[in-house]
């Protein structure tokens, strides 16, 4: 396995573990009806900062291990096959991100439309600080998913071109 592949696996594992936990925490909070709690924004912000620190630490530690177990000549080399796989995967990830952001935008638009015209601003998704935090997290989930698509497709292409 090349250094590039190891690094991609590190990214996938760290993202799935840490962001997986974070979004599970968020979903549990929302499902438990804490969206309207005074502590919602604080709790979520704390969990986000903690996740950010942990994901960076996990990636740094695993990258140090990968560096130590890969010969220097292989670490420094990033050849055309890897660049090609990376470019193709980035294109697919960008399309996925556009699709996801479009869906979120459409969802927000229709939620606003329903709220404004049908229930007169009384719906649970009426604009509040908590809803903005929730929307920010949905967009963060889109970014994490797009990054996972990029890493996953790059790994798949590197395997196919071997």
């Amino acid at each position, binding site marked *: 396995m*090349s250094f590039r592949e190891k690094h991609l696996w590190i990214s996938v594992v760290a993202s799935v573990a840490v962001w997986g936990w974070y979004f599970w925490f968020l979903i549990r909070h929302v499902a438990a009806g804490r969206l309207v709690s005074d502590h919602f924004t604080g709790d979520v912000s704390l969990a986000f900062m903690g996740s950010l620190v942990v994901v960076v630490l996990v990636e740094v530690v695993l990258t140090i291990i990968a560096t130590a177990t890969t010969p220097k*000549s292989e670490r420094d080399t990033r050849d*055309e*096959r*890897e660049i090609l796989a990376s470019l193709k995967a980035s294109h697919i990830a960008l399309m996925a991100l556009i699709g996801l952001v479009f869906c979120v935008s459409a969802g927000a638009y229709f939620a606003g439309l329903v709220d404004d015209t049908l229930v007169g601003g009384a719906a649970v998704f009426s604009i509040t600080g908590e809803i903005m935090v929730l929307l920010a997290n949905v967009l963060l989930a889109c970014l994490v998913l797009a990054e996972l698509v990029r890493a996953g497709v790059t790994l798949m292409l590197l395997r196919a*071109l*071997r």
Partner: protein
Amino acid sequence: MTKAPPPIRNRIRELRFHAGEMTQADLATRIGMTRQTIVAMEQGKYSPSLEAAFRIAAVFGVPITEVFQWEG
């Protein structure tokens, strides 16, 4: 996702053998590529760029057509 191999045949494995059984890692180092890319080329799963093809031919000291042949 897996496509048919490109119609370009190569003699890299054979040329390595004749070059004192040069390893894939040695060839990769000499042309600035990874060993996995040499493996992919030898298996016909990846066709290198023109620049990489010239580098490979230069390592073996042969014309590029001695290394790569179009089968289309």
